[in-house]
């Protein structure tokens, strides 16, 4: 089987093996469950490292093809559906991001209770979907993995969540599945117009090469696919699942969901919606650009008035993910590179936030910032982590947020037209608003007087919590300090997309 000689398939096989291993664990002891989960996560991080190495080797050796590590295996011959694997720079960095967040997530849910085994089973099913989505370039396979990643959320939130979990779980699942209904119709439409007079195909590269989707169909299919992914990317006005869902989800699930799953939305938007339908993207881009502009500012303002830590971070995610889609819709290499950097940066930083919030909540049993204060004296390690995450979020140079936002705004400002400039200026304002809500939380939560005397007895982070957060903090700092490494991997990937966009005008 030639497919097993491709490293990419192991990103699906390893989580599946972990699933199998977990299923074999006994229901009683937690030690075996932990061991299997950590082994799986470590293997994924190792694989991701190996993938980066192979990618750099291939590019260094002068392989300039759009996707590398290509393997096609026919799956459903009658509809020409294939298990088509391939990665470009963007997928590589997204895979690396996912691997690190899964790793950190496993340690963040170290003391998961009740039913730890079942929790990790669903957790790994979710990650199977995420990795599968990033490695495949066949519309059907991609869509299938996309939905595999969505449904475990229902049970993860419903069983292990907190607060108004039944409502949130159902709302999140139905809204995301509603998005995927749009998406499925879009994919079927794309499939039947994928080739002018040859064999119909689901392969993204072939569809882009054929460029056969008629313009009037593009004008219908583009909004369908863009909204389909936009729901997951928390685009205004389809973002309402996100605050409720993230607030109710258990820590590791919030991390994975905000850190990786929401990136599936942004990734899908440019890989499928924009790349395959460049004409409609040029025609209708302004509508979505306006919506994402609203997401950015509205999300940031909403975060300012929330008092629940998770809600603050969830609205901040709406704002930052809006930035991703905003940058993608700018249609130039600089802004799109910035978008991917923002995905990385937001993924790590928001996972860090959720991990820290989960750890604080596990100790204080409240997430309301009005009931907490002076945490820096009580749990300095978590406090410092929170400040670092906050600084990354508001774009302090040296951390990842600055690099990403800087690139995005430079790219966005390259456009000379008033419409885009005005939107860019509005979006830039969100940085200030971000600073307001981050500093408000940091000031209230970490400094100042201790609100509740019982909090003085709380302990600082344990070793697995330190490991989990340190992993993420180091990643944030690496992106902030060595952005060029990532930019080099990413930027070439956008050349075909930008070329398609300019040709389609």
């Amino acid at each position, binding site marked *: 089987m030639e497919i097993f000689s491709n490293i990419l398939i192991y990103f699906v096989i390893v989580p599946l093996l972990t699933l199998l291993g977990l299923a074999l664990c006994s229901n009683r002891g937690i030690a075996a469950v932990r061991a299997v989960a950590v082994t799986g996560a470590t293997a994924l991080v190792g694989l991701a490292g190996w993938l980066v190495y192979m990618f750099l080797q291939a590019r260094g050796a002068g392989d300039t093809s759009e996707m590398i590590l290509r393997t096609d295996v026919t799956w459903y011959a009658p509809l020409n559906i294939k298990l088509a694997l391939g990665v470009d720079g963007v997928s590589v960095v997204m895979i690396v991001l996912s691997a690190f967040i899964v790793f950190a997530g496993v340690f963040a849910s170290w003391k998961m209770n009740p039913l730890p085994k079942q929790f990790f089973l669903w957790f790994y099913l979710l990650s199977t979907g995420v990795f599968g989505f990033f490695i495949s370039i066949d519309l059907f396979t991609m869509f299938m993995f996309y939905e595999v990643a969505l449904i475990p959320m*229902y049970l993860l939130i419903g069983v292990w969540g907190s607060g108004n979990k039944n409502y949130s779980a159902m709302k999140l699942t139905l809204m995301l599945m509603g998005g995927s209904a749009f998406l499925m*119709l879009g994919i*079927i439409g794309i499939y039947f117009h994928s080739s002018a007079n040859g064999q119909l195909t689901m392969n993204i590269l072939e569809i882009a090469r054929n460029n056969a989707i008629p313009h009037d169909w593009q004008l219908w299919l583009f909004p369908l696919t863009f909204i389909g992914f936009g729901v997951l990317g928390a685009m205004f006005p389809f973002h309402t699942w996100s605050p409720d869902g993230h607030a109710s989800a258990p820590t590791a699930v919030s991390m994975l969901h905000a850190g990786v799953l929401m990136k599936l939305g942004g990734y899908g938007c440019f890989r499928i919606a924009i790349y395959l339908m460049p004409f409609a993207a040029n025609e209708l881009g302004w509508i979505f650009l306006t919506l994402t502009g609203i997401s950015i500012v509205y999300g940031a303002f909403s975060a300012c008035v929330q008092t629940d830590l998770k809600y603050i971070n969830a609205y901040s995610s709406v704002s930052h993910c809006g930035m991703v889609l905003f940058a993608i819709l700018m249609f130039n290499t600089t802004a799109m590179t910035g978008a991917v950097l923002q995905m990385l940066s937001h993924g790590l930083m928001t996972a860090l936030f959720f991990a820290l919030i989960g750890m604080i909540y596990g100790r204080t049993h409240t997430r309301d910032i009005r009931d907490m204060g002076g945490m820096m004296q009580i749990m300095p390690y978590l406090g410092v982590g929170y400040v670092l995450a906050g600084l990354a979020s508001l774009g302090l140079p040296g951390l990842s947020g600055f690099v990403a936002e800087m690139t995005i705004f430079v790219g966005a400002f390259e456009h000379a037209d008033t419409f885009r400039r005005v939107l860019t200026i509005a979006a830039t304002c969100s940085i200030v608003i971000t600073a307001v809500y981050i500093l408000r939380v940091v000031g209230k939560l970490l400094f100042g007087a201790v609100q509740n005397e019982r909090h003085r007895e709380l302990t600082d982070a344990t070793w697995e919590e330190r490991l989990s957060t340190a992993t993420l903090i180091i990643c944030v700092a690496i992106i902030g300090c060595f952005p060029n490494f990532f930019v080099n991997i990413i930027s070439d990937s956008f050349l075909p997309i930008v070329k398609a966009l300019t040709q389609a005008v």
Partner: protein
Amino acid sequence: MDYSQFLMMPQEIGLLLVFLLVFVYDTFMPSRSQRFLPYFTAILFCVFMFLSFIPPQMGDAFGGMFEANPASWMMKNMLNVGVFIVLLQAIKWSNEDFVSVRRGEFYELLLLTLFGMYLMMSARHFLLFVIGLETASLPIAALTAFEKRYYESHEAAAKYIFTAIFSSAIFMLGVSFVYGLAGSLYFNDIAAAVLGQGSSVLLVAALAFVIAGLGYKLSLVPFHQWTPDVYQGAPTAVTSYLSVISKGAAAFAFMVILVQAFGAAYAQVWQWMLYVVIILTITIGNLFAIRQRNMKRFLAYSSISQAGYIMLGVIAASTVGMASMMYYILVYIFSNLAAFGVIAAIERQSGKVTIDDYNGLFRTNPWMAFTMMLAMFSLGGIPPFAGFFSKFFIFVGAAQTGSVAIYVLVFIALVNTIISLYYYLLVVKAMFIRQDDCAIPYIDSHWTEELAMTMCVLAIVAVGLASGIYTFLSQVTDSVSHIFAHI
């Protein structure tokens, strides 16, 4: 008469043989060995099921009244697998005190209705079709009334028999119109005769009557009113048989009639009729399912809406549509039977059938809850389970016709998928998320029930991922393209 024509129907003959052997066992074996009758039937049927996978001789028999083709052969095999699972699920139930005195009749009637369905699927002449239809419907009324001690069972049987007779009458009225216009009852002759006549109000009326008559069998809206009551009142084994086997057979026969007999000049007419019916069926089935508390009623409405999805393959009127429809029916058989298997086992031991009774089921019966969850996910179209693939293919099959109206239909169906997901998740929520201090205690299910459930679970996981099944079905339907000659 050329008796070698009977070689064209090995499946029918084999089934009759099974029936006769069961009948002989029931009549002549001493009463102490009667309780092995269910096992005897299941084993015999299993042998028959495997043997009938041997491809028979294809072609016409009896002057073109009966056609053996690969599609109907595969369809029969698929139904056989479903019937085998139903037989397994029924073993323990049929050996219970109240049922056991008449257990022989249960199996005999069940096999006879299956024989009727075989005839429906292979008939190419309305006379043979009606014989099959009646053989398939009337014994089900007796099966529905099988739980004699329950009032609901009687009520259900009365409702069933009235709708069955009524729908047959409507159907035959339609057929008589057709005969008046075309002068023949052969599907092919009708298509050819109608082609020359141009538009005719009578023919449109005939078409409406035929669709209504078969719509009752398939419980399409607005002909669905009997479904929830019958599903609720009938013994669960009968309900599961009714919801998958008889629905699958009727859907296949429906497609053959519409494309072969009415395909010629009236494809547009029946496609628009079906268009409206599909939208109503899917939407109304879904909306009513949301409010149900009784699991059997809930699945009744869910199966109404599923029938609407099956019809998406019919409206496509193409080989791809037919392959997708057969695949959908196959997946639907396994998913629904998994759900009914759990319901039947729980009902048999604890007597509980409402969704609220299922609260906390995962804590007490993890495997039952797991099976039920897979069934719900598959019915709701969640990957990587088979239901996702079957939904996708049925949508692709429908969208292949390419008109904007069909895309609108697919969109409506997709929106309904989300609604259906809501109520399927309600069951999952009850089992996994809700807690109950007096949850259903551990169910000590019989090994036959467990075997049936395991088969369903394996199928739900494997049928989608193993692409060979769909590929094979599309080869099968490609080989019967002559059915679509008039489209």
